[in-house]
Each structure stands twice: as C-alpha cells, then as structure tokens.
C-alpha cells in the first residue's frame, strides 16, 4: 500500500511537471525574426502577384495579406505586424510566430476565421477558434480545399484563400467557385 501510494505521488508529480513545463512554453508570446521586413509600398495587386509565384509563403507575408483585408499593411517589421494583428484579435496572444517560417494551412485557417469574424458552429465556438476546427469550417464553406492542417500553403493557394476572404468580408457572403457572391 505504501509503495503504491509513493508511485502515485511520483506519477502525479511527473504529470504536474509536464503540465507546468508545457504551460510555461505556451503561456507567452514568442516572436522570431522581429525585424524582418517586406517590400515597401506594395499594394494588394502587387502583393498577390508576388506571392502567386512562390512555392510557399512565410508567416511574415501571410500577416501582410491578412492586414490587407482591412486596407493596407502599415507595418514596417514583422513584430509590428504581429502587434497589429494581436490588436485586432486575429492572432493568438500566446502563439509562436516566426517571420521566415512557412505558413501551415491550420494557421492560415485560424487567421482567416478570426479576420473574417467567422463564428462557425458549436465545436468552433467551444474550442475557441482552434486551427483544426477553423480549417474544417473553411473547408465546409468551400473557402479552402480539404487537407491536413499541417500542410504548408503555397503562394497561389494563399492568394486564392485571401481573395475569397476579402470577398466574404466585403459582402458577408461566401463566394462560389468563380468568385461570385450574388
């Protein structure tokens, strides 16, 4: 009995340590490449043209695109972009962001959901805009194609999703396959 209790104590202590460490790791904002910049004076037409030629898209570029949904990207550095999007409640305040890291579909879905104010269904409301359920919501709305949340986003795919998000944001209607919202 005594030995068993001790084992339980050890197990509980171990679990507590794991939770504490995990909690510490995700309890604060991490921004890598704070001073990374992008081409200056780029409007949305030039931005879409540029990224459409890229195999993948960085988180820095992606955040510029999300900011363009509200007009223009006025940020000079990656850190400023993160701060602007945190202010708009688009990014998770405890997230990990890297200017040069390739964007995943899950992260894109979450940003689009938050930027467009998509509340989704019951699960999305309960989970609080998790990447997984944001992606499923956008797939259901035919804003994104089926696929894994961890898959990297290509430039062309990002341009397409961003364009649809913009159409939705302007009209509050989900566009069809040829870009109509009427």
């Amino acid at each position, binding site marked *: 009995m005594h030995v068993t209790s001790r084992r339980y104590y050890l197990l509980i202590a171990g679990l507590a340590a794991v939770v504490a460490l995990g909690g510490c790791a995700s309890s604060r904002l991490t921004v890598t490449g704070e001073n990374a910049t992008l081409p200056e004076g780029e409007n949305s037409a030039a931005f*879409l043209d540029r990224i459409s*030629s890229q195999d993948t898209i960085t988180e820095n570029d992606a955040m510029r695109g999300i900011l363009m949904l509200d007009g223009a990207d006025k940020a000079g550095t990656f850190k400023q972009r993160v701060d602007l999007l945190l202010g708009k409640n688009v990014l998770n305040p405890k997230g990990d962001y890297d200017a040069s890291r390739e964007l995943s579909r899950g992260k894109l879905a979450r940003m689009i959901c938050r930027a467009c104010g998509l509340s989704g269904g019951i699960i999305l409301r309960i989970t609080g805009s998790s990447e997984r359920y944001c992606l499923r919501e956008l797939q259901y709305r035919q804003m994104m194609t089926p696929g894994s949340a961890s898959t990297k986003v290509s430039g062309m795919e990002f341009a397409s999703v961003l364009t649809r998000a913009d159409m939705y944001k302007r009209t509050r209607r989900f566009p069809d396959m040829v870009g109509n919202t009427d």
Partner: protein
Amino acid sequence: MLRYTIIIGAVVALSTGPILAQAKAPAAEKPSAKKAAEEAPAKQAADKAPKNDAAKTDKLNVTVVSVSGIAEQRSATEEKAKWTAIKAGDTLTEMTLVRTGLGGKVVLEFSNRGNVTIKSGSKIGIASFQKQGKLVKTRLGLKYGAIRAKVDSSQGANDFRVRTAVGTLAATGTGGEMAQWGDFSFQAKGTDGAWQATMANRVTSLIAGAWTNQDLPPAVAQLLAQQGTNVGDPHGGLTVPEIENLLVNGGGRGIVGFVGNPQTGSGGSPQLILPVTTNDPVATNLPQVTGPVSGGGPIGGGDPEHRHPR
C-alpha cells in the same frame, strides 16, 4: 457433307460480320467523335472561310469601361515596364497585362464584340485581339483569379478564348465565367448556352448554371484541384519563356511550359472557348484561324500561324 459445311460457314460468316463490326464501332467512334468535338470551332471557322481572302489582320484595341479599387496594367513585351494604375477610358493593346488587387474590378470592352469583367485578385494578359475579315479573334490568358466573359456575335463571327492552367473549356454559348484558383484549380460555369469543359481526357458538358466539377467524385475533384497549385512565374514579372508562351499560346502565363499536361495537347493550358458564331450571312467566307481546340505543339496548342518554331 461438303455442301453443308460450306453453307454453315457462309451463314456463320454472314451472321458474325455485323456483330464484329458493331464491336469495333465504339472504339472507332470514340476518338473520331472526340476529335470532331474538339475541332468543331475550327471547322466552323473553316466552313466560313473565304478561299481567296488573304489573311488580312487588323489589330483592335480594348477599352477600359470602368475601374474600381486597385487595378494596374503594364506591357508584357517591355522588360522594364512598370505597373501603372489603370483608369476608365484607357485603351489597351495586345500584349498588355492587367492585375487587380483585393476589392478591385475592371470591365474591359472588346470593341463591339463583347466585354470581360476582371474580378478582384486576378491577373490576365491580353495576348491577341485582332480582326481577320469578319472574324474577330481574341486570346486572353488568366494566371489567377476569376473573370466573367460576355461575347456578342451580333456584329460578326468571334473566336474568343481564355486559357488558364488546367484543362480546356469550349462553349457554344455566348457567356460564361471561369476562375483559376491556386487551390481549387480550374473552375468554369456556363451562363448562357451549352459549354464543354475538357481537362485531360475528361469532357464535361455544361448547361447554363452548371459547373465543371460538380458531378465528379470528391476524390477525383480533389485530384484535379491539386493540379497547378504550386505554379507561377519566379520573378513576379515575365520571363522570356513566358513572353514566348503568351505570344504563342495566348496566355497561361507562368504555368505553360512548366507543368503542362501533354494529354490536353495544349501544354496543360485550358481554354475558355467561344467558337465562331455569327448571325451575319456575309460572314460565310471567313478565313480559318483556329487550330484544333486542344491541338498539339511543342509547348501548347494555339494557332498554327502563331506557333513559334522551337
């Protein structure tokens, strides 16, 4: 006995002959039917082609009817040309690129032969807009985004094509919409008349309101959607091969020459085709200007007379 054997042999030969012929018929009909369907616009033009009319070509201009939001244009032929804002009333010539930003829209008037609406987040190239006799030939390339095309054949025959990345779309109607997305790939919708979309060897008939992929199993539609996702020109502008492709094929910037599908015979370049239609009885003698709809070629189909030797 020999007589019976000969009679039985003759009866068997007579009875199996038609059966064998029927068995071979579908195999023989399939390619010819497909070929005929593909060459329908070309034949239509050929039927109306004058035998004695030289290939007199007049270049036409495109007028910008309206612009909203961010929209820019630049020359496709000048290496160092810069993007400039486009405004209503501007006149665009062949080899001009137009791109729109988020929320942008441009309406182009193609003389009196129709109009094209470039929706937001799109990029197109005007490869060719010419008048040959009574026939007006238009070639556009859609790199990404969506457009709405309306062709007016009341003034004469039209050969109107828009190419994107994957497949071929032929229309017998006068209006349609199409999109080239980085994720959902090639999408087309008929809005007026019957349409035919061809991607690889699959031909889909579209009536007004019908879509290209709506009847496909999800797995197949997804597979098609994966085509042409990671594409685009590497420099943001035009590379020399792209310029050549635009000249030769009339569009498909950035992808033709990179990931073409040889089965389409057009370098993987899909087309929105509004074949020659006319209400003008005078236009019965028109030159043949169209090649096979999915004609072959080193890097794409297009018009034989515009095909560069490579």
